C-alpha cells in the first residue's frame, strides 16, 4: 500500500495522534498517523466526537421544529438540510409547492452553494498560508450573507423554508441585489485567479497532492465536487432534478485533467471556482424571470401532521449527495429521520489519501476534501 517516495528517509517510524481538537483539523476528529521521517505511511480516522443526537431530536419535536433542527445539520449550508426535509415531507404528504416558492428555493440553494464554496476557498487559503486571498474571499462571502439576511432575516441558520413553500415572499429589491452581487462576484473570481489559483507557488503546493482516482471515488461513494474533480460526472441536479432544476439549463463542470495530476487538491479547488461561476450564470438567467403567484401552499400550524408513509429524497448539497430518509406514522412528530451526508463518505477515503504525503501537506489535503464533521456525526 505504501509507495516509497524519493524523499523517504527510512528513518524510524513514529506514531502521532492528532485531535480530537487541533488547529489544523476540519473539526473534532482524531487522526492516528504513523510517520516515517516526515512522510505519512498510514493514517486512521476516528469520528463521533460531535454526535448531537440530531436524528433523535427530530423524533422528539414537532414537524415545524424539524426544519429548525435541519438547519443545524450543516450550519454552513443551512438551506440544504431544510430543503431535504421539506422535499421528503412534501413527497409523503403529496404537497406540491407553488412555482414561485420553487424558484425562491432554487435561488437560495444556489446562493448557499456559492457561499459554501467561498468558505472552502477560505479554508484552502488558510492551509497554504495566503492571508490576503482569505480576506478577500471572506469579504465577498459577506455580500452573500447580507443577501440571506435581507431575504430571511438570519445570516446562517435561516429557518426560511416551510412545508409546501417558503416562509415569506422576496422583499423588494432582493432580485436586483442578487444580480448585482453576481456581477460583482464575477469580477472577483478574476482577481482570485490572478492572486492565488494560478500562482506558481500554489500550483507547486497543490498539484499532485492528495490525488483521488476514479476507482477510489466509486469504491467509497464520494460525490459532489470531489468526485467531479476526479472526472466522475454525477450530479443529482441532473439525474434526479428537484425543485425545478430541470427547467434551468446549466452544465456541470467536470475536471478532465488526465495523467499524473488527476483529481488532486488543485483540481478540487478549481472545480469549485468553476461551480461558483456556473451558479452565477444560473442565477443571472433565472433570477430575472421567477414566476409570480403564491409563495406558500398553506400556513402549517403547530398541529401540522404528515400522513403515514415514508420518503427518500436526494439533493445536491455543496459537498455532494445529501440524502434524507423520512418516515411518518401520522403523529405530531416524524417517526424516523435519517440523513446520508457526503462527508461521511469523504471521511472514508482519508486513510488512502494521506499515505505518502508530507506532514506539511496534511492540513492542505484535509481542507481540500471539504470535510464537515457536524454533518458526518449528526
Amino acid at each position: 500500500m505504501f509507495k516509497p517516495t524519493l524523499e523517504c528517509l527510512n528513518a524510524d517510524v513514529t506514531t502521532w495522534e492528532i485531535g480530537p481538537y487541533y488547529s489544523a483539523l476540519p473539526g473534532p476528529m482524531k487522526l492516528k498517523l504513523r510517520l516515517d521521517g516526515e512522510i505519512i505511511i498510514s493514517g486512521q480516522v476516528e469520528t463521533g466526537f460531535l454526535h448531537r443526537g440530531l436524528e433523535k431530536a427530530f423524533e422528539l419535536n414537532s414537524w415545524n421544529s424539524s426544519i429548525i433542527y435541519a438547519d443545524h445539520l450543516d450550519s454552513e449550508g443551512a438551506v440544504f438540510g431544510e430543503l431535504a426535509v421539506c422535499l421528503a415531507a412534501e413527497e409523503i404528504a403529496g404537497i406540491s409547492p407553488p412555482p414561485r416558492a420553487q424558484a425562491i428555493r432554487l435561488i437560495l440553494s444556489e446562493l448557499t452553494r456559492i457561499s459554501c464554496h467561498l468558505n472552502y476557498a477560505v479554508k484552502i487559503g488558510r492551509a497554504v498560508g495566503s492571508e490576503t486571498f482569505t480576506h478577500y474571499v471572506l469579504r465577498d462571502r459577506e455580500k452573500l450573507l447580507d443577501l440571506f439576511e435581507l431575504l430571511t432575516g438570519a445570516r446562517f441558520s435561516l429557518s426560511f423554508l416551510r412545508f409546501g413553500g417558503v416562509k415569506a415572499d422576496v422583499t423588494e429589491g432582493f432580485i436586483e441585489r442578487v444580480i448585482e452581487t453576481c456581477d460583482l462576484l464575477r469580477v472577483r473570481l478574476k482577481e482570485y485567479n490572478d492572486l492565488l489559483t494560478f500562482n506558481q507557488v500554489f500550483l507547486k503546493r497543490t498539484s499532485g497532492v492528495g490525488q483521488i482516482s476514479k476507482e477510489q471515488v466509486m469504491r467509497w461513494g464520494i460525490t459532489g465536487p470531489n468526485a467531479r474533480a476526479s472526472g466522475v460526472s454525477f450530479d443529482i441536479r441532473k439525474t434526479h432534478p428537484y425543485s425545478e432544476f430541470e427547467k434551468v439549463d446549466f452544465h456541470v463542470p467536470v475536471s478532465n485533467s488526465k495523467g499524473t495530476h488527476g483529481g488532486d487538491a488543485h483540481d478540487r479547488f478549481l472545480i469549485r471556482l468553476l461551480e461558483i461561476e456556473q451558479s452565477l450564470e444560473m442565477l443571472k438567467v433565472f433570477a430575472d424571470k421567477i414566476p409570480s403567484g403564491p409563495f406558500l401552499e398553506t400556513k402549517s400550524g403547530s398541529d401540522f401532521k404528515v400522513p403515514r408513509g415514508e420518503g427518500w429524497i436526494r439533493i445536491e448539497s455543496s459537498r455532494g449527495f445529501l440524502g434524507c430518509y423520512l418516515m411518518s406514522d401520522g403523529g405530531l412528530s416524524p417517526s424516523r429521520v435519517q440523513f446520508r451526508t457526503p462527508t461521511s463518505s469523504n471521511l472514508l477515503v482519508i486513510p488512502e489519501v494521506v499515505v505518502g504525503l508530507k506532514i506539511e501537506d496534511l492540513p492542505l489535503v484535509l481542507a481540500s476534501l471539504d470535510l464537515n464533521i457536524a454533518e458526518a456525526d449528526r
Partner: protein
Amino acid sequence: MNLESISTISWISLMQDQLGTSSWRIALFGLSLIYGLIILPTGAVMSYLERKLRADFHARIGPSRAGHAGIFQPLADTLKLLQKEKYSRSTWTEMLWIGFYTMAFYSIVAVMPLGSIALLVNTDMSAFLPFWAALVLAFGTMVFGLSQDSVPGWFGGVRVAAQALAGAFPAIVAILCVGLQAGGFSWSSMAAVQGASPFSWTVANPFELIAFFAFVGGGMILLGIPPLDTGLSMPDIHGGVISSLYGKRYSLFRFSRFYGFFLWSVIAVTMFLGAWILPFGLSEILRLQERFILLGSLELLWILLKTVLLMLVVSSVAQVVPRGRVDHVTDFSWKVLSPFSLLALIGYTVWIGLRTFL
C-alpha cells in the same frame, strides 16, 4: 574616487580623545546607544508600518486603537507581552536557546554599518560577520525547536536548520561579487565605490543586480522571513516552533526575527543600494566643514530610510505569495538562487577582465 571618503573616522577614538575613558566603556556605551536609539525605535516603527501595509493589502483598517491611527500599537503590544509570563519554571534548554539569542544580539552590533561616523569596528572581513549572527540565530531556533517535546517542534527545528544551510550559500556568493567590485570586504571600501545617484550604486550593474536578488532571497531563506518561513509557520501542524511561545520569550523571539531582518537589510543597503552616501555631495561638504555630528546623524537617517523601505518591499512579498513547503524553499535556494549567483560571479569576473584589457 577621492581618498577622504575612504578614510573614515572611527568615533571610538574621537570620544577617547574627548572623554579620556577606557575604550570598552565607550564600546559598551555605544552598544546601548545603538540598541536604545536606533534598533529598538526602528523595530517599533517597522512593526507598525508592516502591520499597516498588511492591512492595506487585506482591505482592512489595521491598528487603530492606541494613539492616533494606532501609532502606539507596538508600544502597547510590548507592554502587554512583558506583562504575561510563563507559569512553569524555565528549564536549561530554554536557557540554552535564550543564551544563543543573546549571543547573536550583542556579538556584531559593533560591526553594523550605520554610517561612516557610526562605524564602531571596520575590519576587512566585516561583510562576513553578519552570517555568523544569522547562523547563530538559526542555531538557537533549532535548539529551541528540538527542546520542545512535540512533533511540530522537532520538524520546525530541523526545517530551520535546513533552510539556514540552504540560504547561506547564494548569499555568500553574492557578497563575493560585491567584494570583486569593491576590492575588499570592509564597509568603507564597499561604500567608497558607490555614489549618491542610483546609477552609481552597485545594483546598476546587471550582474550585481542578479547578485542583489540572490543576496536578498538567500537572506529571506536563511532567516526564515515570510513567505519562506516553513519552520515558523503558525498552524503548528506545518511544523511551527513558536506555537508554544508566549510572554517575554515570545517578545524575545519576535525581536530576534526583526533583528536578523534589520541586520540583513542594512548590509544589503550598504553593499548594493549605495550605502550611506548622502545625495547632492552633502557628505563631502560636511566632512570638509568637519561637522561630524551632523554628518553622522544625516547618514544614519538616510541609511535607515533606505533600510525600512527595503524591508517593507521584502515583507510585502509574503502578502501575495502563499507559504511554500520546506523542500520547495530549499530547492528554490539550491536550484535557482545558487546557479544565478554563480552566474553573476562569473559574469562579473569576465566584465572586470574586459574592462581592464579593453
